[in-house]
């Protein structure tokens, strides 16, 4: 039998070469997929871990109340815990600590101060004068502290010792530098948040509040070895995750999870509170999950490629069996037993499998390497040279052997008596496609109902659906051809009608039809899935960012930031924005609490991003949210100062905390306020804001309350307050003054006047009573609407059962704001899937001010169409761009495998289709040579014979190709919304919108039609040329 196989191989090498090519192609695809889900996946995890944001990869240990003598040991122990938790990766640590509060000498107001040590201080602040502390006793002050304490470089300060129960030795400090905190420099973790001063600070150790100044920034080592007790300390460890592997990442995740109890155990009683916080373990778990999602999609493609290859092989095997029919009969007649023939088939198939595997292993390594050097894998840092992996070799060999089983089965099937086989085939075909449809429906249902996890069904579903669709489509082709047959009968000519008859009546090879239909479906589905996936990722990115460029501010916004951001981005529109939590009564909806998003809706189309339903746009959706017209306040020269003096009649002293609302040229509104003071007629400067060019005063709020310890039962006080500016006020034509809403009737006869540089506010205020709000006098340069019109997300609408036209009361900060629902949208920009409210920031600010809360709740900047992105250099906070987020989602290391393998699937499907087509028509060439020659005998010209043959193939092929494309399109609409997942594995938000890229699909179908036509045309031409006496002689 071996000899027979060898001789047959020599004689039939073109056939065997075709079989070998198909098996090699399939095994190569499997090998590439194996490398993508093993080698590339491992590399991707490492790259993703290494690219993780600092905030997500750092591990921070917090300790508090550390006794001075223990401080140095606690620092060392904490560092050890952190670095060992991050092993085997090297980690860099940075520590900062603050001492307990201690009295500030020479003050009669019980003022306090504290020492701080920050290891990487030059990265967190910038020196305005002097130098950083280098020796014990040297200190640097923040600008506000130095100014308020009237200290400068060279000043000396003596801090007295503290009692033994909270030890702090006396320390003499020399100011060696003045520094300005850098935004995003971690000053939010300073006791005073880097402000340098707080009028009524409470450190939690007592009930009392103190005016607190500081910190005195000294060397970290000086602090922990100086004997001062530490009120708080934090050490941040940042691992270097380069070269990470799944195993080392698993180790570090476990280490980080265990670090918290280890630190507590290690420090024991030496620290009052200890905590280790890190997002690293969760981040790594999320990355692994995301990788699993990509792997599932890659495996789904692998299954699809395997099914396609198996169908191609079934066709090739069937044609080969037909070619060998006579030989098989002869062998049978010569006495070869079925077992011997089976052994022959197995030996031949095994040899093909081994040769194919030997070719596919290096080929798959090369293809994988090539793929990894192309976008998106190359951009994702996944480029790799040709590699051989155990899993790859195993998959290739197993795949090649499994595929060649098809050949063995077909060879054995050819042995079966034809009568039995025919009956079995009819039965099988009638039931198999229906069974496939049932399985596909089950797969779809499972896919529809699944959660965020990936599983077998996700891997099998696309292949099941496509093959079921192709099998069903095959059933539709014969009726279509029968119509063509009926039409052809009416014709008087011969070539085209004969082609139609041939197509409609000749039993077509089911395997060829299935392959052509399935390959066309796979290729078109591959293209549309790729486009749909990319579109969904872009949609997710757009909605998540909400705009083109967003800056989430780490510190409160400052006047002039808008101009700086405009300069750093070149953006067409820059708007301050609010993006924060919102209280809506007892929120009982699912998921996270509601969010408030507010920005300039007069530029909604330019500013907002995120898909909107139908043919609407954001400008249409947000129409009516913005107030009418801009605000014209009192212009303020750069560097203006403010002071308030106020008096109130009656026996009960009143206090106030005046607040000014300023607006800069970019529309940013900031609040200026001061500590509460008694209405004593004295001038109280309002600090904390420094007007820049183009600023205006647009509102003043004067809350009035009885002084602590006093109680009023309805006394009326005539209040007069004068706000003095450093420039003339001018006319207050558009200004109004009123009681803050909701008006309790406590503020009577409010009045407003301007003279020179003074704004004068007067009113009678009824004190006490049962009102639970502070009477507040509000003067504004604008008219505020009674309610804030908003549009809300579908999640919020469903969660609280409201719809367009509904009225709600929400809490922004501590201020209740009435809102009217002007519309419901699927999602609000920057709040995908969340219960969210979208408002116009100007309107919201006006209504807040009218309610006695003159603030603009800004915590972000949004920029439209930025020409560049130099915002990071401004150190304002976290910068996110739509394009960056889109690139992360589409070409990130954890996602890049999917588009890469889809781009491999499409050419593979096309290749297999062409291979199947060539095999089919070549077989036809051989099978019908005599028949074609007789057509010539009938008097058909060569051209007419070509028309008959080409027409016959076209009648079969074109419906099959279009049926395949139809199946691909249906699969796109049915399954891609379920296949495309967000990075968490959940359904994407916004919902996936299936994309059918008409241009690419048309081109693909054109290529398929052209390729198939070329193959059929060449064969028809050869057949027409060969049709002659020689063929007739063969027949005779």
């Amino acid at each position: 039998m071996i000899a027979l196989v060898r001789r047959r191989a020599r004689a039939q090498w073109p056939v065997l070469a075709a079989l070998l090519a198909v098996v090699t192609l399939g095994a190569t695809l499997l090998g590439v997929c194996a490398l993508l889900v093993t080698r590339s996946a491992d590399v991707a995890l490492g790259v993703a871990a290494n690219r993780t944001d600092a905030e997500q990869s750092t591990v921070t240990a917090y300790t508090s109340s550390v006794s001075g003598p223990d401080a140095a040991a606690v620092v060392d122990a904490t560092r050890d815990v952190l670095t060992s938790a991050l092993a085997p990766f090297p980690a860099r640590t940075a520590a900062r600590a603050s001492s307990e509060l201690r009295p500030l000498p020479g003050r009669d107001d019980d003022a306090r101060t504290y020492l701080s040590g920050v290891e990487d201080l030059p990265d967190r602040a910038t020196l305005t004068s002097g130098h950083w502390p280098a020796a014990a006793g040297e200190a640097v002050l923040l600008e506000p502290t130095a100014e308020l304490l009237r200290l400068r470089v060279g000043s000396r300060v003596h801090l007295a010792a503290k009692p033994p129960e909270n030890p702090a030795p006396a320390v003499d400090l020399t100011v060696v530098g003045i520094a300005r905190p850098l935004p995003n420099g971690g000053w939010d973790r300073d006791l005073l948040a880097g402000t340098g001063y707080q009028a009524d600070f409470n450190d939690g150790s007592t009930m009392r509040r103190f005016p607190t100044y500081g910190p005195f920034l000294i060397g970290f080592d000086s602090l922990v070895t100086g004997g001062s007790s530490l009120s708080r300390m934090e050490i941040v460890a940042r691992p270097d995750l380069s070269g990470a592997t799944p195993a080392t990442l698993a180790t570090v995740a476990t280490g980080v999870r265990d670090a918290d109890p280890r630190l507590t155990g290690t420090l024991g009683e030496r620290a009052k509170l200890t905590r280790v916080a890190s997002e690293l373990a969760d981040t790594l778990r999320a990355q692994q999950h995301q990788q699993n999602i990509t792997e599932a999609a890659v495996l789904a493609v692998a299954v699809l490629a395997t099914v396609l290859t198996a169908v191609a092989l079934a066709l090739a095997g069937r044609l080969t069996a037909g070619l060998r029919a006579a030989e098989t009969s002869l062998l049978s007649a010569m006495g070869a037993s079925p077992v011997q023939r089976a052994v022959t088939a197995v030996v031949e198939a095994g040899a093909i499998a081994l040769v194919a595997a030997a070719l596919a292993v290096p080929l798959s390594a090369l293809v994988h390497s090539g793929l990894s050097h192309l976008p998106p894998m190359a951009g994702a840092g996944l480029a790799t040279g040709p590699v051989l992996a155990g899993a790859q070799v195993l998959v290739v060999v197993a795949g090649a052997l499994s595929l060649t089983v098809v050949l063995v089965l077909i060879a054995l099937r050819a042995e079966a008596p034809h009568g039995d086989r025919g009956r079995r085939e009819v039965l099988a075909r009638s039931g198999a496609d229906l069974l496939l449809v049932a399985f596909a429906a089950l797969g779809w249902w499972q896919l529809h109902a699944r959660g965020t996890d990936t599983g077998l069904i996700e891997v099998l579903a696309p292949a099941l659906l496509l093959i079921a669709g192709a099998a069903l489509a095959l059933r539709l082709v014969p009726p279509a051809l029968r119509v063509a047959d009926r039409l052809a009968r009416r014709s008087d000519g011969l070539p085209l009608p004969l082609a139609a008859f041939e197509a409609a009546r000749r039993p077509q090879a089911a395997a060829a039809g299935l392959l052509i239909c399935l390959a066309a479906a796979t290729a078109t589905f591959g293209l549309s899935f790729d486009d749909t996936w990319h579109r969904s990722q872009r949609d997710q990115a757009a909605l998540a960012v909400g705009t083109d460029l967003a800056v989430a501010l780490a510190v409160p916004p400052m006047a002039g930031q808008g101009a700086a951001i405009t300069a750093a981005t070149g953006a067409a529109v820059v708007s301050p924005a609010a993006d924060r939590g919102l209280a809506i009564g007892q929120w009982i909806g699912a998921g996270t609490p509601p969010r408030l998003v507010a920005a300039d809706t007069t530029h909604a189309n330019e500013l907002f991003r995120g898909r909107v339903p139908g043919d609407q746009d954001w400008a249409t959706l947000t129409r009516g949210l913005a107030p009418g017209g801009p605000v014209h306040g009192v212009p303020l020269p750069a560097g203006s100062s403010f002071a308030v003096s106020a008096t109130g009649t009656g026996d009960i002293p009143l206090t106030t905390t005046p607040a000014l609302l300023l607006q800069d040229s970019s529309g940013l509104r900031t609040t200026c306020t001061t500590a509460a003071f008694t209405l004593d007629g004295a001038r109280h400067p309002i600090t904390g804001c420094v007007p820049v060019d183009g600023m205006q005063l647009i509102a003043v709020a004067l809350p009035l309350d009885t002084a602590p310890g006093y109680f009023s039962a309805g006394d009326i006080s005539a209040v007069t307050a004068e706000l003095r500016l450093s420039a003339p006020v001018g006319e207050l034509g558009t200004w109004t003054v009123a009681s803050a809403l909701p008006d309790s009737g406590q503020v009577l006869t409010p009045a407003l006047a301007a003279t020179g540089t003074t704004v004068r506010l007067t009113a009678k205020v009824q004190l006490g009573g049962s009102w639970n709000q502070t009477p507040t006098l509000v003067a504004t340069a604008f008219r505020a609407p009674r309610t804030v019109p908003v549009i809300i997300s579908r999640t919020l609408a469903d969660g609280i059962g409201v719809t367009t036209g509904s009225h709600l009361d929400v809490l922004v900060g501590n201020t209740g704001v009435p809102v009217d629902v002007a519309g419901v949208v699927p999602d609000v920009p920057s709040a995908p899937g969340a219960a969210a409210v979208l408002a116009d920031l100007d309107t919201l600010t006006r209504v807040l001010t009218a309610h006695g809360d003159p603030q603009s709740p800004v915590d972000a900047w949004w920029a439209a169409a930025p020409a560049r992105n130099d915002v990071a250099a401004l150190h304002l906070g976290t910068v996110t761009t739509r394009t960056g987020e889109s690139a992360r989602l589409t070409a990130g290391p954890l996602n890049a495998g999917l588009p890469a393998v889809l781009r491999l699937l499409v050419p593979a499907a096309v290749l297999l289709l062409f291979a199947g087509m060539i095999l089919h028509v070549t077989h036809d060439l051989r099978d019908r040579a005599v028949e074609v020659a007789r057509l010539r005998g009938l008097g058909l010209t060569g051209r007419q014979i070509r028309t008959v043959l080409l027409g016959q193939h076209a009648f079969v092929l074109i419906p099959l190709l279009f049926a395949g494309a139809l199946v691909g399109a249906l699969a796109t609409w049915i399954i891609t919304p379920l296949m495309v997942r967000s990075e968490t594995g959940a359904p994407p938000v916004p919902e996936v919108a299936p994309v059918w890229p008409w241009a690419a699909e048309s081109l693909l179908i054109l290529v398929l039609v052209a390729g198939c036509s070329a193959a059929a045309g060449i064969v028809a031409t050869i057949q027409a040329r060969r049709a002659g006496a020689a063929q007739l002689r063969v027949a005779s």
Partner: protein
Amino acid sequence: MTAPLVTVRGISRTFGAGPTAVHALRDVSFDVEAGRMVALVGRSGSGKTTLLNVIGGLDRPDAGSVLIDGEDITGLDEDGLSQLRRDKVSYVFQTFGLIPVLSAAENVGAPLRLARTPAADREQRVRLLLDLVGLADHAEQRPGELSGGQQQRVAIARALAASPRLLIADEPTGQLDADTGRSVMALLRGVVESEGVTVLVSTHDPVMMALADRVVRIGDGRLEQ
């Protein structure tokens, strides 16, 4: 004596070259009168099929000329030869040569479609011819559903469909049993009588030879008469 419909002069045909060349025809010349049935007789490999193919324009001679109805077909191009086969020459093959996917009626109507005969005329002619060959009741059956003899009758009806001047039959009874073969031969003879068609038939069958107006013997590529 009637004028010859077919005039063959000095035809030679060689396949291959060099020592392995096969001289299928060597300087063959003969005439076939119109309305006659001529049997071409010879052993296998004697050159009968080659001669019929050359006369029918399916093959080209290396030398010599063939005149059909006075027209030298050896100078015709492929389209001219196709036109010849469409208008003047019909074939009946040993293996019937029917188109498997067409019914008997459609097979017979194929040459008429080729001539773009209107449907009504075509159907009438098809019915007539199927009546002539005794298969009117089998018009809708496909070749696979007919016996060998019936298939050959359909082939003869198809050959007559376009009213050719010359019908070439290459061993038309070769695949048939003796009785069926005889009935087919009788049909061909009847066609000569009724349609006035000239029939050139190759055969080994003595009955066929007996039915022929003339027997031409060929051996080793040469005429032996």
